[in-house]
């Protein structure tokens, strides 16, 4: 086949791949078709890779093979071994790999471009800008994601890290990036600017995630997800590959939508999440809003009597359920309650857990049917019809301070109104405040009962009482 025909074939197959990606995403619109969608999307990827190997530029296959075998093995092992509770940190890590890959592609594209460039026919400014962008976005996605991975897996503290002069430092870095971009485009053959760009992008990623606390991680992961797509699209511009642009933009758009949903669910703007450490702000205001009352502890036995008499129960899971790995006992309790002729549903807050949809995956793992999981807007109007609301390891997302106390840092955030249920059980390790460090008036309400202890153990006791 002639070189021209081969190129035509490759690009035609790219069109097919793009269609398969789009169809795959479309089928993700319903849990019933989602698995097929994922298969179709992977088919698109397979086609794209295979047809690219026909490219006549490629004359050596050993290195490609080595890269694919090593990467494939690592990917497969991680995908098999990872616990569902660790899904947020795994996604963060994968985002990082994607970012680094884009950085490397940008770099390699530059070195090839410089090789073929002549004095009369230099590398175009457009190509240089896109190479710079793929290095910059790729690099900051990489270090940002690795840091997010560290915070999520608790290898490093999840507390927001803020210092005075942070904004000044960040602004200086941004100015340095712009200056570096200018110098790089003016004289790309001076590799020092390239190295500086790589270094700055890596520093930028660290500075970007450092001040963000664990409870804000859903926003950050979504944003990094978006970046990994945009970096791929930038790399696509740099090497003139349309499929990279299409697939990268799809991912970029997806991440932006998720980021937006997460921000809305916290009633905060993106810049507020990114530039003000939440925990640090709230600790200073929390003393002012304490509405002390009596906390009413309840033994598992007494809780059993109430549950046995209840006919409708709503369960509100939070990050604490993931930490205690309690999803399977929750499901067990649900079955016992159902056997007792009670209706059991789950209410899921968009930012419950550490990434979008975190709770849904955990409950799916425990075989809870997805049609029992209701969103905040579906559950709130009928909250007062429930006999019992069981809060398992959730705190801020059920905190009525968001509705009632104007000075509270979470005031205005949409919450699940559990306090409107007839009785509220709160399963909680101790009286320490939640991740955001805000007091929760829910614990002092007339209809609230506290079940102290490890969520898994408490649920175990309840289940035993039913037997």
């Amino acid at each position: 086949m002639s070189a021209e025909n081969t190129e035509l074939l490759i690009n035609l197959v790219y069109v097919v791949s793009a269609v398969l990606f789009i169809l795959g995403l479309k089928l993700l619109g319903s849990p019933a078709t989602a698995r097929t969608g994922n298969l179709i999307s992977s088919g698109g990827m397979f086609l794209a890779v295979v047809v690219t190997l026909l490219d006549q530029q490629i004359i050596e296959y050993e290195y490609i093979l080595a890269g694919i075998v090593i990467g494939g093995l690592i990917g497969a092992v991680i995908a098999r071994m990872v616990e569902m509770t660790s899904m947020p940190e795994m996604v963060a890590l994968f985002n990082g790999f994607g970012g680094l890959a884009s950085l490397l592609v940008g770099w390699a594209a530059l070195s090839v471009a410089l090789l073929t460039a002549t004095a009369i026919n230099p590398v175009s400014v457009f190509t240089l800008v896109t190479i710079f962008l793929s290095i910059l976005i790729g690099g900051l996605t990489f270090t940002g994601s690795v840091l997010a991975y560290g915070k999520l897996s608790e290898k490093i503290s999840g507390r927001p890290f803020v210092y005075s002069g942070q904004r000044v430092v960040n602004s200086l870095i941004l100015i340095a990036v712009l200056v570096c971009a200018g110098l790089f485009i003016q004289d790309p053959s001076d590799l020092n600017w390239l190295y500086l760009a790589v270094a700055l992008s890596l520093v930028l990623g660290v500075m970007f995630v450092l001040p963000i606390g664990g409870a804000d991680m859903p926003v950050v992961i979504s944003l990094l997800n978006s970046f990994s797509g945009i970096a791929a699209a930038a790399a696509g511009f740099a090497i003139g590959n349309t499929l990279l642009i299409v697939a990268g933009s799809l991912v970029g758009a997806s991440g932006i939508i998720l980021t937006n949903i997460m921000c809305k669910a916290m009633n905060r703007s993106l810049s507020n999440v990114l530039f003000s450490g939440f925990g640090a702000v709230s600790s200073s205001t929390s003393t002012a809003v304490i509405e002390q009352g009596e906390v009413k502890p309840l033994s598992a036995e007494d809780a059993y009597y109430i549950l046995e008499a209840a006919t409708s129960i709503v369960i509100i899971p939070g990050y604490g359920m993931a930490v205690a790995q309690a999803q399977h006992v929750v499901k067990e309790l649900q079955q016992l309650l159902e056997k007792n002729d009670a209706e059991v549903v789950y209410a899921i807050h968009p930012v419950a857990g550490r990434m979008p949809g975190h709770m849904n995956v955990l409950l799916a793992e425990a075989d809870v049917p997805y049609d029992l999981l209701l969103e905040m807007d579906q559950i709130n109007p009928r909250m007062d019809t429930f006999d019992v609301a069981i809060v398992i390891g959730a705190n801020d997302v059920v905190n009525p301070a968001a509705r009632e106390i104007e000075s509270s840092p979470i005031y205005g955030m949409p919450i699940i109104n559990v306090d409107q249920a007839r009785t509220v059980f709160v399963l909680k390790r101790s009286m320490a405040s939640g991740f955001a460090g805000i007091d929760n008036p829910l614990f002092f309400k007339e209809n609230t009962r506290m079940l102290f202890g490890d969520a898994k153990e408490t649920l175990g006791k309840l289940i035993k009482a039913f037997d």
Partner: protein
Amino acid sequence: MEIVFLMFIFVLAIFLGFELINKVPSTLHTPLMSGSNAISGITLVGALALAGSAEQELATILGTAAVALATINVVGGYMVTDRMLAMFKKKQGGNAK
């Protein structure tokens, strides 16, 4: 002209992405993220040509590293998404396991 052509594709794809993803229910947001993660491994396609061109040692080394990293994304991303989606079941007849 090629710049305009590429920008066209970029802008249209972003709008299409918004339309598609807006229809994904929140219950599937985690698989959506890991699945789109796998798609962003498309960088692999760009890395292949750079790793195999044998024009320059540096490009080969960088390209090969990019191939390995992007493959982790592609293989790991699709596999873990499939593993997750297999767990989502409806109430009726869904409790087979």
